[in-house]
């Protein structure tokens, strides 16, 4: 019989496989080997013998990655550890990866589909730290992976946590062919501030594209998506249609993608999303709910993750509507689920 890991890897590469069956098999595997997850399932009287559909697989709250070592293996043997960005006083999420096969396959597949559907070999200008500078950033790993596998050349433009705007401006000035700019929304905004100050604009060659992720969270800046894309067009000459937005998290091995100003995101075939009514805990389709993702590429951690992001299912994806709770929870006042 084909081993589970092999079946999942094949599904990631070819989209061939039975998601439902693989999800149930992966749940049984994670239940058996991931002790904190098993304890969580047992506390709710759920086990592989009582779960018969992928929708019923228990999802861990995303915050569990802050407090528990959710792994099917001794974490000292992890090939990589991805951590969420650290903010003052906050504990970061930790995602232990046994090996990087699944992560790399998942991220390259989706990236090519959304950013390089024309198979273009472009120079990558990465406005994020290199993995050497941020070894626990899943984003830096992702950029490094796609650079290695898909780019004609690539360079990083964040050094010691700061965007190296003069060098990026110089690289853009000398770019005579289409290029791909990859980075966080915040990093691009910092570069646009520099351009504004220096009165710089660029008209990148047609076929150039921009990939951004992260939104403006934690920045304290109020910039809407349309405003951001207007600035991309104004400062770089990249039209909205060539701007790709990613929604991801360090707790997942796969990512969701959207295009232009839309808040609509799609995931790959090996990821399925439910929206959960925060009041009842039941899956809903006719109204917004909390996004719950099942990611088969999370082979050796936990596949089912309950986020605190609000979304509305639509077609093959969902509209991302924001966070369920914006304020820091305090004083027993985490908004109740029925509201």
């Amino acid at each position, binding site marked *: 019989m084909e081993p589970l890991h092999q079946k999942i890897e094949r599904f990631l590469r070819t989209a061939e496989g039975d998601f439902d069956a693989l999800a149930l098999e992966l749940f049984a595997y994670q239940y058996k080997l991931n*002790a*904190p*997850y098993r*304890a*969580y399932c*047992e*506390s*709710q*009287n759920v086990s592989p013998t009582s779960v018969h559909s992928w929708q019923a697989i228990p999802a*861990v*709250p995303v*915050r*569990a990655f*802050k*407090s*528990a070592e*959710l792994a099917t293996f001794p974490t000292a043997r992890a090939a990589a550890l991805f951590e969420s960005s650290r903010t003052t*006083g*906050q*504990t970061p999420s930790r995602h232990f990866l046994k090996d990087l096969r699944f992560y790399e396959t998942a991220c390259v597949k989706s990236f090519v589909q959304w950013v390089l559907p024309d198979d273009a070999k472009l120079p990558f200008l990465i406005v994020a730290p290199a993995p050497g500078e941020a070894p626990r950033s899943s984003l830096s790993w992702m950029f490094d992976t796609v650079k290695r596998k898909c780019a004609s050349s690539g360079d990083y433009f964040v050094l010691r946590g700061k965007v190296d705007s003069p060098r990026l401006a110089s690289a853009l000035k000398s770019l005579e062919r289409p290029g791909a700019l990859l980075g966080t929304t915040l990093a691009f905004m910092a570069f646009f501030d520099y351009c504004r100050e220096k009165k710089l604009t660029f008209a990148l060659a047609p076929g150039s594209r921009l990939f951004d992720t992260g939104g403006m969270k934690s920045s304290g800046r109020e910039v809407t998506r349309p405003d951001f894309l207007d600035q991309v067009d104004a400062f770089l000459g990249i039209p909205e249609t060539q701007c790709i937005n990613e929604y991801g998290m360090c707790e997942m091995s796969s990512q969701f993608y959207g295009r232009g100003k839309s808040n609509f995101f799609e995931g790959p075939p090996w990821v399925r999303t439910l929206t*959960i009514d*925060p*009041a*009842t*805990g*039941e899956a809903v389709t006719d109204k917004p709910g*909390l996004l719950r993702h099942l990611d088969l590429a999370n082979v050796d951690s936990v596949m089912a993750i*309950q986020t*605190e992001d609000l979304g509305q299912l639509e077609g093959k994806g969902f509209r991302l509507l924001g966070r369920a709770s914006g304020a*820091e*929870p*305090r*004083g*027993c*006042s*985490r*908004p*109740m*689920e*029925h*509201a």
Partner: protein
Amino acid sequence: MFASDGTRVKPAAALARSAALWLDRKGAFRKKAIEALTVSTGFSAPLVEMGIDNAFRVVTPKALASVKPARESRILLIVCPSNVFTAWLPPAVLALASGHSVWLKPSVHEPVFPKLWRESVEMVDPSLAERIKEIPWRKSIYEAADAVVAYGSDEAVAQLKEACGNKPFIGFGHQVSVGILFCEALEPKRLPATREAIAHAVEPFRLQGCLSPIHLFIQSDDVSLWRRRFESPAPFPRLEAFHSGPELLQKLSSIPDRLACIGWEGNPRSIKPLQASLTRLGVHRICPLGEMQSPPLSWANGGIDLVEWLKFRTRSSIG
């Protein structure tokens, strides 16, 4: 009160024995609970242990001795919060000890603690556990319940209160707590004890609980010195200087949130003259800093005596 098999049930003793299961550091139940709660709460194992210890160490036969059986058994619905997983335990314990039934509506984000608490009661007294039900949300949830205790944001509590109509209702909305370090607590020989008290107050629930001090007022000219000495990478209260009682009271009265608890460290003579004024500010609990997180079962949170309220003679509520 009698169980279905006719044997005499002593809820207080059973509740204390189930609390002992949670507190047994070598017990399999506690170990399993910590592992599961570490996943559901997002708190590290040491923080989960602190939460468990603070919540259950006060559930003793002595603490429950004053609870008299109610004349008529009613159903109390508790809408549980998601951030401070043990917050709802006092009303649940007191209601059961009074002879009432308890329905728990768990948070979607933290479904584990209600189940495990019921399990712990079932392990020592299955008939008592029959009076605990975990129920999912539904529109008619209030109709079958006789009274409601709800935890949540002010808005959510207000909505629930409205939905409950004339039913007895208590809503625990947004509240904050504050710590005070009088100058005596800063003397070199007292500093180790002060540090320990700060840790006991600050660490549980990473400052998310209504009993966590979000401000720490220090009777000193040099707050920056104490900031360097006390602060840790973990969430830490905002430090603020004060020099006299009147100045402290003025600063406390300017805090816009409801004050749940004030913890102090120093000479008892320093807090004594302030107590009446603090009560006037609406503070219902004034205690040593290190005890903030483990209030007695009898604590009248929000000024409401739960034992008395559970007789359902009044319709008290705080919103």
